């Protein structure tokens, strides 16, 4: 799932400078699950902003609402009436949500309340770790189901660099060495020999490097 993290409220307070009527829009999907932008956080943020404004002696209204998925135009459109009369929208959705809102409400400024961080999973309650880079060309079959692109700090394709020690990465003792994990996994599956082959140069054009990407499912297109 998409994992995001709330921006420092002071940053947001700066962004709402001079606005009179603000609507905070939550998203009930990924960012709710990653505890960053669900109904609860929206309420806290809105209340926080109200307080901040009062402290600065400013007069402004902050309202709150929340929708199923900010990354669906239809859902965002449903906000039309709620949006009326506001001069600023704050999205507690991921980057996608912010942009969908911007697209649907061209005349209204929308600002992000979150930093969209990674595609990953909760390691334990309150801790999320990265698992995928959306490189567009999955090689997990070759690496025992552990992704070197997202879990090796250098996205190496041919085994751990010299910095790997005690299963940890050279850049930080509390990061696992992705390639060590791959090694252990393949050992367990007793497929180590596959590591002897040189993995060819990766085609990065399928990833972001190939420019903005698109997925088209012809048969599903109407």
């Amino acid at each position, binding site marked *: 799932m998409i994992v995001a993290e709330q921006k420092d409220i002071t940053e947001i307070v700066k962004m709402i400078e001079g606005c009179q009527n603000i609507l905070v829009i939550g998203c*009930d*999907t990924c960012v*709710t*699950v*990653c*505890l960053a932008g*669900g*109904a*609860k*956080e929206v*309420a806290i943020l809105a209340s926080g902003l109200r307080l901040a404004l009062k402290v600065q002696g400013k007069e402004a209204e902050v309202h709150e609402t929340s929708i199923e998925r900010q990354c669906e135009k239809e859902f965002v459109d449903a906000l039309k009436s709620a949006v009326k009369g506001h001069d600023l929208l704050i999205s507690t959705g991921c980057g996608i949500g912010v942009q969908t809102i911007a697209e649907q409400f061209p005349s209204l400024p929308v600002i992000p309340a979150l930093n969209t961080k990674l595609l990953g999973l909760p390691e334990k*309650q309150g801790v999320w770790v990265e698992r995928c880079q959306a490189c567009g060309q999955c090689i997990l079959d070759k690496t025992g189901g552990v992704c070197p692109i997202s879990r090796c700090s250098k996205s190496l394709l041919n085994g751990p660099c010299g910095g790997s020690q005690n299963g940890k990465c050279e850049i930080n003792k509390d990061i696992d060495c992705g390639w060590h994990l791959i090694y252990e996994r393949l050992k367990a599956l007793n497929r180590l020999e596959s590591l002897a082959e040189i993995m060819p140069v990766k085609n990065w054009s399928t990833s972001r490097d190939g420019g903005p990407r698109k997925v088209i499912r012809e048969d599903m297109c109407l």
Partner: protein
Amino acid sequence: MDNHLDSCTGGNNGIPVKIGVFFCTCGHMMNDYFDVKALMDYAAQVPGVAFVDENRFLCTRSGLEWLRSKIVRSGCNRFVIAGCSPHQYEVRFMNVLEEAGLNRSFLTIANIREGCAWACADKEGCMPKARQILSSAIKRVALAKPLEKVRRKVESSALVIGAGISGIQMAIELHGLGLRPILVEKQEKVCPKDASFMNPCTQGAQGSDEVFSSGWITQKLKELDDKKIEILTSSQVTQVKGGPGAFRVTLETAGQEKILDIGSIVVSTEPEKRAVQKMTALRPSHRIVSLSGLSDLVTRERRALEQILVTADKRTKYVCFILGEAEGFAKRSTVMALNEAIALKKQFKAEVVIAARDIIVSGTQIETLYQKARQAGILFFRSTEDSGPTVSIEKGVITVRIHDPALDRPSAKAASGNAGVCGSQESEGAARPVIIHADLLVFEDEILPGEDTECLKNALRVNLNKGGFYQEANIHLKPNLSNKKGIFLAGSCHGKEETCEALGDVRSVAMAVYSTLSRGYLETEQKVVIDTDKCALCLTCFRSCPHQAIEIGEVELGQKWGAKVIPEACQGCGICAGECPAKAIEMVHYSDNQIFSELTLER
């Protein structure tokens, strides 16, 4: 300002809220603090209030009678009682509501006695505060939603995990109460891992040396047999779902998966033993044993023991026990040591020395046992906090050095001379350790949680304490509850050391189990409700509920997944409601709106 009214009519499915406010003047006492009449007038003008009245003693029989009639006649559907603290009579008043056919949550107490009249340091602050308490109580009750009661039939079966001494006893007790115990043992046959684990606490003291030997066990096993108690050997619990009265337990029985519906679960597994570090540090020798090792010698390999303690030469043999090396279970070690010491003294005429920092006697009859040991002529040395006894093996001879300051005193010369018998006095010096050339050196065992504890814990979703034993650290769980309702802890798995203690523990658990199952059904209030439509299935509540009262799965059979509360397991703390990122969880009696309504200040 009073939008709370319209906002709540929804919760009251359209029927307009009519609030009745009753004042209890506690005799006339309240009038000494503020003008109750004025308060009543104030209440009367708060929107939504339809009826106001007062009584001098609501809490008395007559008072409650009066209240009941008023409730019916007033035609109101929400009630505020302004009087003493809810902790006094809230329950009684709620019962009255119920008798009057209303939901008990449609009542709020305005605590104007303890909370205001008696508490205000400043008399002039009293009236406004009373008014404020009253108004927020009215707002609160206007928002009240009904607390639903759920009644669920419960299984009469109880799963007893671990057929140790406690487990066996547990099964028998439960059977005696007409419940259906099912005994689960991971070994392929039921024979308590170590009969000596729980040492006969009363041995010696009672004279009967066999209160608790294998004899006890064979007899119990027979009992199990006669009572046809269901026993699942080589079985392990792999998953537990549901709550008290209706657990669904998955076991692995001899490779087969088996699913049982269980009313209540008792954990009575046995811990493991390990040699203390000080002992493992020494070169292994048949003359250095752990307490349990010794009792094995005594019971099974007598010959070996004789070889150590009986030889051609008539030299007196020396046995030395060193205690206080292991964390915890000190009582068990002391009792075992005392028993064995007395036995060895009797049977081999050996010189027996027990070196310990503290003698643990805080158990049934142990003091007596200790006295008996002293009379038997066993020598006790008190090592000091900082310098415990040291052991060295010099050309095959086990040498123990003990610093007992008591022996440095002139008065204790005699004693030290006595100590000399079992060793040689070292050259003069300030602190002269007693030296013992031990023919047999005995250490206590270190008691550790059973090796299956970890996986069983995960299956049951119960907590462990710092030591890795089953948790009970929190006082509210004592004497033997786990963090999950309906799962109980019995015996050594949560630190019981003596047999009496353990068996006692078993009985009190049996009673607790009986209390949950005897009625055949459980009736609980649905304190927490989850709005499935809002639930984002983030598992936060599932992970953060301290009582594991939340499950993830089909909310209704065949419906989409969501989080659901097991009302029987829920204890109504509201932690989940506080955590839920989707605001899908609400505490019926403490909804956000209700809490907010109490926060609005009069301006």
